[in-house]
Structures are given as C-alpha cells and as structure tokens.
C-alpha cells in the first residue's frame, strides 16, 4: 500500500518537474520562465520528496527527507524572488502584450 502511494507521488512529482522543465525550455521571456521554473519546480520537488517520505522506512531517513523538503520549500521561492528583483532592477521588463509569445527572448 505504501509502495503504491509512494510510487504514485513520485511519478506525479516527476511529471510536474518535467512540465516545469518544458516551461523553462519553451516560454518566451524571462519572467514566464521564472514562473514555470520556480513555482512548478517547488511543487514537483515537494511531491517527489513526499513520495520518498512515504517510502522511507526509518525515522532518521524520514527526518532527512523532510529537512530537504523544508529547505527547498523556503530557499527555492526566495531565490526566485531575488532573481526577479535583480532582473527588474537591471531594467528588464515583461514583453509588451502585443508582441506575443513568438518574439522569443528578451530585448
């Protein structure tokens, strides 16, 4: 039972991570990519780690997994925030709505 639940969580999480990766690869400008990479990635990592928490047999390992999860949960959004601020301060702006996603890249 725990194995099935753990596997499901692992697969769901890794699919989410993959979706985030595709977003990072495909989206047209930095802020879109930031959105996909940080938010979706944190969710996916959380799901995978939750799956491993279910699968972990002992308390020590469960604690380590929970620790990794907590660190990712706090540090990943913080990094995204810092990056977004730094990008805004350096004068980067979101593409104009009219230019559409096909322009690709930042100018």
């Amino acid at each position: 039972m725990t194995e099935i639940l753990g596997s499901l969580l692992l697969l769901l999480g890794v699919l989410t991570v993959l979706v985030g990766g595709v977003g990072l690869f495909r989206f047209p400008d930095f802020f879109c990519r930031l959105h996909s990479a940080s938010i979706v990635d944190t969710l996916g990592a959380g799901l995978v780690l939750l799956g491993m928490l279910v699968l972990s047999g002992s308390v020590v390992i469960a604690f380590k997994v929970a620790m990794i999860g907590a660190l990712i949960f706090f540090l990943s959004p913080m990094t995204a925030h810092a990056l977004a601020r730094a990008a805004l301060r350096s004068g980067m702006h979101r593409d104009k709505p009219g230019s559409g996603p096909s322009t690709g890249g930042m100018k």
Partner: protein
Amino acid sequence: METVYLIVLGLLLIAGLLSIWRAGIGPTRFDRILAVNTFTSKSILFISVYLFATGHPEYLDIALLYALVNYVTSLALVNYLNRNPVSAND
C-alpha cells in the same frame, strides 16, 4: 518498483537536459542562473531517488548538503550584479 524508479530517474535526466539547454543559450544572465537553480533542485531529487532505488538512503546527506548550500551561487551572483550594475540584456 524498479520500473517506477527507472521512469523517475529517466524523466529527471530529461528535465535536467532541458535546464542545461536553457543555461547554454541564455539569452540573459538571469535565465542562466535560473537554469542553474532548477538543475540543482533536479539533482537533489535525482540523488535522493537514486539512493532510495539502490537501498542506501542513509547517504542522503549529499542531497541535504545541496539543498543547504544551493543559495550560495545565487547570492554570489546577486551580489556581483549589485556591485556591477549594467544595463539588462546579458
């Protein structure tokens, strides 16, 4: 169970490749640092899942270390950008 682990590891590798691609082509420096960050979190997952798959989860310390010091690169970069303000676009 082994099939599940194989699928998970394979998908993580593909996601890692996408991150590397983004880090390689940019186009701005922020894209690259973002790609480094997501690659790190994917490696944390990869190491953890691999250790679980091979039955040695006691070495999770390595993944924990990455989760702990992942911020240093971003912090050093933000520090660098603050010291050397340049106009955007790489």
